[in-house]
């Protein structure tokens, strides 16, 4: 008889998707992989709080999103005190570097970076990760109407930026 996949096996299988979400949230690849690592560590630590039979992916996305919010707040406090960092100084591991980084890819990434955080996370979860409105509303503890209206604002702003960039 096959035993059910372990928590760690399931987490491993989720890793590529979690990483994609981290890259959509973060403004640079180094931050994205740091965020992914923190989320994995937190998920392992909180393992006993995950209820078997519920969706592990939603649970992990939620952990990652909350860590990201914490980091964003800390960075906001820090950058308010310090001089702004030069853009493009960070060297990270972007898996897309190996590909021909087309103008179009740059446009999309720049447009995503410019979205307000609360719109970017919802655009990422629904348009990239493929979650439903209801799932995202539960994951982020937001009313479904808020999810829906932020998504409209986010994707409308994206379309306008991608069109003009």
């Amino acid at each position: 008889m096959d035993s059910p996949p372990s928590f760690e096996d399931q987490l491993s299988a989720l890793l590529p998707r979690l990483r994609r979400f981290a890259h959509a949230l973060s403004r640079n690849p180094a931050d994205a992989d740091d965020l992914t690592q923190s989320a994995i560590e937190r998920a392992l630590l909180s393992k006993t709080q995950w209820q078997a039979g519920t969706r592990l992916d939603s649970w992990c996305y939620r952990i990652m999103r909350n860590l990201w919010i914490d980091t964003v707040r800390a960075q906001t406090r820090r950058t308010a005190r310090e001089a702004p960092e030069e853009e493009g100084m960070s060297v990270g591991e972007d898996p897309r570097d190996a590909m021909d980084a087309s103008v179009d890819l740059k446009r999309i990434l720049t447009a995503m970076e410019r979205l307000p955080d609360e719109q970017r996370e919802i655009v990422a979860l629904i348009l990239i990760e493929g979650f439903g409105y209801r799932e995202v509303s539960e994951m982020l503890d937001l009313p479904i109407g808020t999810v829906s209206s932020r998504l409209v604002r986010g994707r409308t702003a994206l379309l306008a930026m991608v069109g003009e960039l």
Partner: protein
Amino acid sequence: MITADEKFFAWLDGELPPEEAARVEAEVAANPELTRLAEQHRAMQARLKGAFDPIVDAPVPERLRQAIRPTTTDVIDFAAAKRARDTRNWGSLPQWAAMAATLAIGVFVGTMVPHRGSAPVEVQGGKLYAASALNGALDKQLASTPADDVRIGMTFRDQSGAVCRTFTQAQSSGLACRDDGRWQLRGLFAAPEGQGGSYRMAAGMDPNLATLVDSTIAGEPFDAAAEKQAKDRGWK
């Protein structure tokens, strides 16, 4: 006639029940502007996915794989650790003494204690408390505070409701919880040979500490706001 409102986008995302979806679809089909807008948004989503989907197929960096299955240290089985804790119940001994017995931290603590005044720990009434710089960091620092000698990790409540915090110093890491207005050490772990200093600070949580946290924590770790609030209330 409808405009490009939330219902239009809900239709676009397949979120409407079939009947309503059919109605919106017909309205969009009859309206060239909305038809064009729907096409633009579909194309934009395709480009968005085109930009991020390659990450799913890209090789995952080794350090992320390692975070799930550390190959250099023993893999910790949290569930097994919890079972061991539940069956053994170290209640009768001071917890750090029980930890010392099983995890051999006693020697390490011993080398720290004699240097009174600057030592990071002191013993009182058979209990081990944080002192000097460590005590100050536990009292004042947030996890987001840039680390000097002591870096604060997680903050959470234990099963008795006391606030607990993990910390990392150059040569050790540990867990301290509030006890009568002081930080009582629940565990202190020496950095493995050759893993002192900055490497350790960046290497993530000591597996022994992670196990201890897992057996101590009640609920979720504090987020930044809860951590700040707990600090403002004097860690009560």
